[in-house]
């Protein structure tokens, strides 16, 4: 029973981070119809920016917002300088649909190259503000620590903010309308180009939080080649697909489902499946339910 509860706690915390990554993938997809393979690279770069702030100010509470702002800025820059040009240049012909997606792969390499040049290839370390030692009940230790609690609270707060932004503000209304049909939105006076850049920077922010918390929930060390960040892309993508790729709520549900499934597989099947389970789940989801497990099943976009 105790192991069962621990498995759930581990799954939820991991799933919350996957959700953030899924949200950034969904935000980019909704605003520009691009699957951004560079998302993990951008999260990594944001985490390095957060690390830099940590070195200077020695405070996670400064490093986190700096990483978020850095993530937003990097993301907005990429949308403005690369994606806008790419989408415009590839608007006709058979390559139109794939060019921007392939380009994000190139972008991923470029970002890693930039990171290696600036920070070198060796591991750097980021330490969380609170301990990751689990709370104990009697003589047993829960797989839930102050750090995990902080992770959950941060993720929930960020999601609430995003939900309020999307559902209650006019900017959010423009974001939703532009996602549904950029042409009609434009005709109705929405500045769709600005809205796209905004969608990307929100994605960058969300990815930055995912990167920071992924790192401090692990052993804190990361490098340009960190496997954790490659896994973050895969898990984020799976969560987004499970969620139907269109909705933020779907991304959150997808992240939690994925976190729990992986946690149970690792605990009850085999811990050595860590690098295999996510990929198997991705393939299963794509084969059985390519339209997503939650959210609307109707493909509404032409």
């Amino acid at each position, binding site marked *: 029973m105790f192991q069962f509860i621990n498995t759930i706690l581990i799954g939820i915390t991991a799933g919350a981070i996957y959700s953030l990554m899924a949200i950034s993938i969904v935000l980019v997809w909704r605003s520009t119809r691009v699957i951004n393979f560079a998302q993990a690279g951008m999260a990594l770069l944001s985490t390095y920016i957060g690390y830099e702030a940590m070195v200077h100010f020695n405070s996670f509470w400064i490093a986190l917002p700096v990483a978020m702002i850095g993530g937003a800025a990097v993301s907005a820059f990429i949308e403005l300088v690369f994606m806008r040009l790419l989408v415009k240049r590839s608007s006709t012909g058979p390559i139109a649909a794939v060019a921007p997606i392939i380009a994000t792969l190139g972008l991923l390499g470029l970002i890693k190259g930039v990171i290696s040049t600036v920070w070198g290839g060796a591991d750097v370390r980021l330490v969380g503000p609170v301990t990751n030692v689990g709370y104990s009940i009697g003589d047993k230790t829960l797989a839930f620590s102050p750090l995990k609690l902080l992770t959950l609270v941060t993720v929930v707060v960020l999601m609430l903010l995003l939900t309020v932004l999307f559902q209650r*503000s006019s900017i959010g*209304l*423009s974001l939703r309308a532009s996602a*549904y049909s950029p042409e*009609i*939105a*434009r*005709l109705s006076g929405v500045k769709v180009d600005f809205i796209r850049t905004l969608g990307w920077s929100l994605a960058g922010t969300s990815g930055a939080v995912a990167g920071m918390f992924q790192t401090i929930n692990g052993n804190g060390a990361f490098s340009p080649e960190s496997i954790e960040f490659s896994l973050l892309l895969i898990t984020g993508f799976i969560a987004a697909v499970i969620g139907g790729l269109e909705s933020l709520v779907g991304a959150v549900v997808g992240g939690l489902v994925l976190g729990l499934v992986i946690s149970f597989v690792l605990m009850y099947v085999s811990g050595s499946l860590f690098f295999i389970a996510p990929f198997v789940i991705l393939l299963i989801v794509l084969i059985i339910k390519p339209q997503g497990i939650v959210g*609307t099943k109707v493909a509404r976009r032409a």
Partner: protein
Amino acid sequence: MSTNTAALRVEGVTVSFGGLRALNDVYFEIGRHEVVGLIGPNGAGKTTLFNALCGLVQPDHGTFFLDGKESAFPRTDNLVDLGIARTLQGVGLFGDLTVLENVMIGAQHLAQTGLISAALARNGKDENRIRERSRIALERVYAGGLAERRADTLSYPDTKRVAIARALVSEPSILMLDEPAGGLGTQDIEWMNLLIRNLSAQMSVLLVEHHMDVVMSVCSKLYVLNFGEVISSGSAETVRRDPAVIAAYLGTGA
């Protein structure tokens, strides 16, 4: 013809798609509070002209005058700021938003709040103003009761009402209607006629329409397009008797 005070005037509009000339040296003008119809057989270039006015198609040549001032042809997302609103033939509502939200989108440019306060969702004042105006716009097209419905659950005539409400909420000085009566039954057409006549008290209306009885009853001036050129213009009576118009319509079997 020489009035500099026309609400909107274009001259020499030429549009080609590849080698095909879709519009050739087209002109028209629309005065304040005037209802002007663009008619012509299928493929005459009516929609292309509408698209050129909305920045959806780039004209090769042509001059554009708004309130007598020459300017470049508008960019699509700038249209509403210039006081021009357009409905689409295919209606074009945002299916996964509510009716009220659909209309509110048309009033986004009224929000003066910057990004930061919007991100913090603190633009409640703007928000309420836009919401209120959107409700009024819906009432105007007798669709107030639909406000909370999802747009993709509406009947076709209702989507047309909502599309017009979305155009109206931006308080345009020029309203462009793309086949407002298309696909409507007799009763709804009558209602649309009445609405268009009422609207002309506040704005100029430019419409493309196939229903001749609608055109004849609401338009004070018509331009007839055929093969991308203006072949006739004037009052409904004048145009109706114009041999060139009769030939164009008979020639295409209409």
